[in-house]
């Protein structure tokens, strides 16, 4: 069913574009309603038939992936959920992918957030990902959620020298000194990689400026598309790599699927959301090309 629908819709879009292409060669202009139909199809077909495209990771994303991949098993990775529900559709795929990857690689995962709204999102992630997909992982041994502390970069200023000055217990009120995962962990400097996922303030930028750079700790980020251009200048010196917008998430997910066969069936919202995006972008580009062909044909015809 899915395949038939897919083939038919691709045929419609492909043949349609080809027909418009031929019309353009004859110098005919396209009515804008036809463009509207194509955009409508390009967005709704992938939604209805779940079409996705395999992404090829760009270097800036690959660098994050292989940073996690190449750390020895049991390394300490910190994930900070610096976002709220409104930003979640765009950046939650990133934090989920990071979480899956770090756990699959048997790293120790420390989860926290600088946004109060991140707290409930962490709880959801623990329930839906760790408890369901990694039932063998033990809270306090393989991962820990230390939750939210107010203060933004002030929190970072403190935990870069000592976690216990800010965090005495984890979210469940368990003393950090009695938690095995925190044995030998004093400050952020004991982390092998810091990852902040966000798009506002405080976010990736604050992690770089107040933790990564002063503590010389590798830092990576996941950011909403609007904030991403402001972060590129930190790569690669102060930032290991960056996932920018839903496209970055999709690239990471596809890399994860490629390297870990066990994730073949994992939900990949990033890749799924890139389906309509990619098709729509291709349609827009196709129309730019068609428009220019028509323009040049017409100009040659009537000089």
């Amino acid at each position, binding site marked *: 069913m899915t395949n038939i629908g897919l083939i038919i819709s691709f045929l419609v879009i492909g043949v349609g574009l080809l027909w418009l292409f031929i019309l353009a060669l004859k110098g005919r202009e*396209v009515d*804008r309603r036809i*463009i*509207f139909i*194509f*955009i*409508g199809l390009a*967005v709704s077909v992938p939604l209805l038939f779940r079409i996705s*495209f*395999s*992404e*090829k*990771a*760009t*270097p*800036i994303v690959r660098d994050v992936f292989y940073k996690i991949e190449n750390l020895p098993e049991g390394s300490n990775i910190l994930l900070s959920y610096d976002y709220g529900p409104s930003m979640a559709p765009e950046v939650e795929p990133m934090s989920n992918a990071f979480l899956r990857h770090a756990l699959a690689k048997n790293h120790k995962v420390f989860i926290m957030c600088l946004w109060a709204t991140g707290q409930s999102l962490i709880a959801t992630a623990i329930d839906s990902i760790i408890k369901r997909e990694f039932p063998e992982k033990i809270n306090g041994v393989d991962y820990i959620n230390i939750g939210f502390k107010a203060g933004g970069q002030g929190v970072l200023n403190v935990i870069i020298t000592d976690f216990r000055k800010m965090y005495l217990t984890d979210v469940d009120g368990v003393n950090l000194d009695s938690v095995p995962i925190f044995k030998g962990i004093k400050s952020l400097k004991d982390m092998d990689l810091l990852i902040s996922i966000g798009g506002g303030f405080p976010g990736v930028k604050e992690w770089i400026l107040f933790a990564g750079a002063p503590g010389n700790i590798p830092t990576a980020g996941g950011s909403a598309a609007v904030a991403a*251009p402001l972060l*590129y*200048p930190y790569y690669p010196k102060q930032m290991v790599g960056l996932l920018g917008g839903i*496209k970055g998430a999709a690239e990471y997910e596809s890399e994860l699927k490629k390297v870990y066969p066990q994730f073949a069936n994992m939900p990949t919202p990033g890749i799924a959301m*890139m389906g309509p*995006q*990619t098709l*729509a*972008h*291709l*349609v*827009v*580009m196709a*129309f*730019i090309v*068609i*428009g*220019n062909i028509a*323009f*040049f044909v017409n100009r040659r015809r009537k000089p």
Partner: protein
Amino acid sequence: MKKQVPLTITFIVGVVLILSVFFPPVETWGEDFSLFFDIIAVFAFFLGGGNLIRVHTERIAKKKKDWGFSIITILGFLIMLAAGLFKLWNPGDISADVAATGSLFQLLYDWMFNPLGATMYSLLAFYVASASYRAFRAKNRDATILLIAAFIILLGRTPLGMYATGWIPESFSVLQIPNLAIWVMTSPNLAGQRAIMIGIALGVVAMSLRLILGVERTYLGMDID
């Protein structure tokens, strides 16, 4: 009276607010004045509501073209107004949030106002495409530059960019489309934005000065004497 008083008010208020930035004792005036402006703006909403009723009753009375639809406007306006001002179906008392869950106001907002606005906004996806088709044409040098920059960014936002140029070795990686797209966004784009921003800042400053000095007075509905 009709001319000099308003000009004097503008001058005095403007100068006081400029000075308040430099003189800590009156520093908070700027904030107070902004709050006052918010309050005045609410009176403007009422002015707007009054105008809306006037415009549409007139259309109905004079049986102008499409006057039937004006009835819908007035009905929608009155129902929403009643729902909001009297807090209809609101589970709380008079001090409750006007948009509390379950209230008619919230239902109308969630199921009418919001879908209408979101759909109107989403029309942009279609218009972005038709505008690209119509306008991104290599008519002259400027248009060609515009077209190329847009095309690079569009390509960089799809997997196609990486597939087409991923083979380029690391030592030339700036030529890979996604990297090129990032570079365009962070260098020439930043430069252009900054130039426009500085220009606008100066335009605003000069315009404000003209207003304070009373040189520019069209906003009062009068010409320069």
